[in-house]
């Protein structure tokens, strides 16, 4: 069995190269996860040595694209954690409905399943026509997939269960047309979505939102980087807007925690004043 062939110091070199050459800064990602995924790529692509791996990354931008696709985590599902969506439906959306226009940002949306979940909720609350959903991710490949709104049909049974548990009002299958392998979601949902690449580490705020969702992204960031991203979210969130995080993520350690109040037991916080 092979001992992890990439050492910590080598990883530092690699990340510095990438930051200089491509402007992607992974140095503040949590090390263990990043190391594991880089290791995996190194092994799968059968590099004979670290030096060759490093050379390829420095000189082949196509390979770097693969690197980004492979080391970012793109696991997601529709209506994951049904109780979370239930709270969105029953507590948050009724308040957002008072706005003339609703803007929602899914930061780190991966292949878009959460964006489609939200669009369905908005549709059933009669709000989709006056909402715009922004989905962003660092990885261009997943953004292309998200735009298409086509997902494996074998997932639909699970999603349908999530949908029912989240308080769904219809037949989940009304939202897509399926063939043997694939389910394509209704274009009336996609019509209210904007997908774009965006790097939470280096890119700026691009709009103001009433709701920002960023679930299972911050677990891969150092505390310092988390703080930076929280500032970006705070700057992008209207007063009395909401920030939703993953089940195991928290605003607790953020310097702006005082400016936010948690909504019930879910990982949703409301901005009650400017953090300054």
């Amino acid at each position, binding site marked *: *069995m092979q*001992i*992890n062939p990439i050492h*910590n110091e080598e990883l530092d070199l690699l990340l510095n190269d990438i930051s200089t050459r491509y402007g992607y800064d992974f140095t503040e990602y*949590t*090390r*263990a*996860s990043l*190391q*594991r*995924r880089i290791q995996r790529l190194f092994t799968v692509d059968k590099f004979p040595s670290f030096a060759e791996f490093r050379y390829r990354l420095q000189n082949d931008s196509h390979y770097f694209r693969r690197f980004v696709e492979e080391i970012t*985590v793109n*696991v997601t599902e529709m209506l994951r954690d049904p109780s979370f969506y239930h709270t969105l439906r029953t507590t948050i959306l009724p308040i957002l409905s008072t706005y003339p226009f609703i803007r929602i940002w899914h930061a780190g949306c991966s292949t878009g399943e959460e964006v489609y979940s939200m669009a369905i909720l908005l549709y059933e609350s009669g709000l989709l026509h006056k909402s715009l959903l922004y989905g962003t991710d660092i990885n261009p490949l997943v953004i292309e997939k998200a735009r298409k709104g086509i997902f494996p049909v074998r997932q639909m049974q699970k999603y349908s269960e999530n949908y029912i548990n989240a308080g769904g009002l219809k037949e989940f299958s009304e939202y897509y047309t399926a063939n043997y392998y694939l389910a394509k979601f209704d274009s009336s949902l996609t019509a209210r979505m904007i997908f774009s690449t965006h790097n939470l580490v280096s890119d700026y705020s691009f709009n103001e939102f009433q709701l920002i969702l960023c679930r*299972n992204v911050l*677990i*891969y960031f150092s*505390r310092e980087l988390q703080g930076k991203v929280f500032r970006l979210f705070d700057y992008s969130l209207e007063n009395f807007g909401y920030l939703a995080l*993953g*089940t*195991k*993520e928290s605003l607790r350690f953020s310097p702006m925690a005082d400016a936010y109040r948690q909504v019930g037991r879910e990982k949703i916080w409301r901005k009650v004043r400017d953090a300054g």
Partner: protein
Amino acid sequence: MQDRLLVIGGSAGSLTVVLSILKEIGLGYPLPVLLVLHRQSSFESSLEELLYVRTRVIIKEVEEKEMLRPGRIYVCPPDYHVLVEQDHSTSLDYSERVNFSRPSIDVTLRSAADVYGAGLTALLLSGGNADGAEGMEYVKERGGFTILEDPQTAEVPYMPQQALFRMTVDRIASAEDLPLVIRELGHK
């Protein structure tokens, strides 16, 4: 002195042994203990609560970026992998299942072995899938100490057997003997 960590991996049929080990060592064990147990993510009560109710030992669910401290017993949260950082803090990871499992025992063992090396002890218990076997082998490569629940006394022998197919473990103990073996290990 070298920093130490005990990781216990278990799947189907491991709960009884885990409970008796926890009862035996209680709190104040000289090294941090990290439990990687497979379970249905749809369980209502948390594993934390279940283990407490059955053993009266306070177990803590791992949070992201939490320092692993001697004397405490940690359990992986459902549906997340747990990795260990150089500074002995934990990272949560929601990436793909490994061996159909999240948390995966292999994932935690590999990352803990990179950090703790010879200071790591890994115990693999009863289970019905192959998770943990590769991790055990890796722990040994890195100089750690490996213990296996004897497949002959394991409720579901498949998992410890998979480890035996790959490697020679340092110690094999029956379900009955394991609590004492683990307690003594702490005082070495």
